[in-house]
């Protein structure tokens, strides 16, 4: 026996306070659902596989103090040294640190002499050891050999004849899935670069880039004025290896400025804004939900106190305790459902605006429904304690004159 019709007419006569709570719920749902979808998006982003054993990797950057520095010789000596350190799996030179937010990119085409279109890709200049050092999974073709390597001077044409690319980039260049053995070109370029290998995935330099995962590896060493190495330690030995790397590189050549850090630290820094966003939005969602719950508790307590006599009369006329509790819970549910229906429309409108203006992720119906369900539950739990207390109002209240 839900008394819906008389309940609705009673609510209509107290519509201001009911509508205020309904609107508060609507606004909360609009904010909470959109915040949730952003939080979910950021969490998924941070949980993406990088394609590397991040916990085992160490990044080294150095710049020699001397002007006429033999960079090629230094790289060869350094890498030999690094690979000889106990606990090191492998080491490679590189032009950029993965997931660091700093790197190189260019536009590449599947056809020669193309000026427009093409596919933007992050690219590495590295060598045959990058595959083992970065722990990548070669799914087609072969790794670089020393014969593929080019050592180039600054201002020299740096193009290589071969490259290894990620599967994502391969699919972008050749959507039919037959990229291996085919070539790609620079913009307006005519010299082909043959795709000799395809790796499963690699996130590249920019974690927040919409095309993170478009990555090309060229077998190249440029003799510019700084150089980077990636060092892979055996699992669990990274910190020990890091100390040894720092000490031995400094001992081999103290005349250079060197920075060494773990890739985990770099990745954490790259995701710092996402982490902050997740924490702030989660706090906002929790706070709003708490405030709406307080509002519901407040309104229910207010209405119950206002209707103490009426509750006593209902009890005198035969209402059981359960009837009274149910009355307030159903009344609360009616307000909640009205507010959440408004909120679902509001959430969609707000999301449409955020997608078009701020490139935020789209709000899916399941997320919206889950948020609405959570808020209905919060609203019911908030109304439950006052509703149970209302049931304890004595039927004798009906005969009291005050």
């Amino acid at each position, binding site marked *: 026996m839900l008394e819906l019709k008389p309940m609705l007419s009673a609510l209509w006569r107290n519509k201001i306070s009911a509508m205020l709570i309904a609107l508060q719920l609507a606004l909360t749902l609009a904010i909470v659902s959109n915040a949730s979808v952003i939080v979910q998006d950021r969490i998924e982003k941070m949980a993406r596989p990088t394609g590397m054993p991040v916990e085992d990797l160490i990044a080294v950057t150095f710049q020699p103090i001397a002007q006429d520095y033999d960079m090629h010789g230094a790289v060869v000596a350094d890498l030999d040294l690094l690979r000889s350190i106990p606990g090191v799996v492998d080491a490679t030179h590189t032009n950029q640190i993965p997931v660091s937010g700093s790197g190189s990119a260019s536009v590449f085409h599947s056809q020669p002499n193309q000026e427009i279109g093409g596919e933007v890709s992050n690219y590495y200049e590295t060598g045959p050891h990058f595959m083992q050092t970065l722990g990548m999974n070669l799914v087609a073709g072969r790794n670089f050999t020393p014969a593929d390597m080019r050592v180039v001077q600054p201002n020299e044409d740096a193009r290589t004849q071969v490259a290894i690319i990620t599967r994502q980039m391969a699919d972008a260049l050749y959507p039919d899935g037959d990229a291996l053995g085919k070539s790609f070109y620079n913009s307006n370029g005519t010299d082909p670069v043959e795709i000799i290998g395809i790796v499963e995935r690699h996130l590249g330099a920019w974690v927040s880039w919409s095309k993170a995962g478009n990555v090309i590896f060229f077998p190249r060493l440029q003799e510019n004025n700084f150089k980077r190495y990636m060092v892979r330690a055996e699992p669990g030995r990274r910190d020990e290896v890091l100390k040894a790397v720092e000490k031995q590189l400094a001992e081999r050549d103290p005349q250079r400025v060197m920075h060494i850090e773990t890739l985990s630290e770099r990745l954490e820094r790259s995701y710092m804004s996402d982490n902050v966003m997740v924490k702030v939005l989660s706090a906002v969602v929790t706070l709003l939900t708490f405030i709406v719950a307080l509002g519901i508790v407040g309104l229910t307590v207010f209405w119950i106190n206002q209707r103490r006599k009426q509750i006593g009369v209902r009890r005198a006329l035969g209402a059981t305790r359960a009837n009274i509790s149910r009355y307030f819970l159903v009344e609360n549910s009616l307000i909640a459902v009205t507010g959440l229906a408004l909120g679902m429309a509001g959430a969609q409108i707000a999301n449409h605006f955020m997608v078009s203006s701020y490139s935020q992720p789209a709000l899916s119906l399941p997320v919206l429904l889950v948020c609405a369900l959570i808020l209905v539950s919060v609203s019911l739990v908030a109304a439950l304690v006052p509703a149970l207390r209302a049931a304890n109002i004595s039927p*004798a209240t009906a005969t009291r004159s005050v």
Partner: protein
Amino acid sequence: MLKMHNIRKSYRTDTIETHALRDFNLEVKEGEFVSVTGPSGSGKTTFLNIAGMLETASGGQYLLDGEDVSGLNDRDRSRLRNEKIGFIFQGFNLIPDLNLFDNIDVPLRYRGFNAKERRRRIEKVLEQVGLSARAKHLPAQLSGGQQQRVAIARALAGEPRFLLADEPTGNLDSLMARQVMELLEFINEWGTTIVMVTHDPDLARRAHRNIQIVDGQVSDLQHAVAAAEAATA
């Protein structure tokens, strides 16, 4: 119909225990119209609350329609209240947000009648109290006398065998009070047992029997009233 034996009711605070009723004995027979009078604080309302199962007694035995209600749980007491007792309150106690139809509907919904049966009963009692045309009006749109007639209609809709009235004319002027009293007498003539708490000696005299409660105990004044009337005549 109603039988109370050695009913006791006390209220306890941290420091004081107040005895509202003690050794309270009363029997009301089916079809009787009994008025209950007594000074303020004598225990009239406590008696009414216990008779209407709005409160439980601290001790003693209470039989309603032959059933011992002293040990019933809240659910069974609610059911019995709904089925056997009609209440008329001094302040009418209509629900201000509901129209007359929905006000009368309240106890019928708790009884579990279907919509058709509820409508039949509501239309019948509204006609009996002469307010059929006002079914969609809110209580605030009616006079005090009309509101009390609605309250009586609500009490009658469940066709109770026992009507408890708490100062039913207390908030009405003399004309309206007379109309309400005539309505109660009419209802009693149909066979409904009525117990009415009142301060008004004229109304009390119109009952078959007057009970006076003093200091939480009952004194049956039926013979005293008759003797007083005889002396006056």
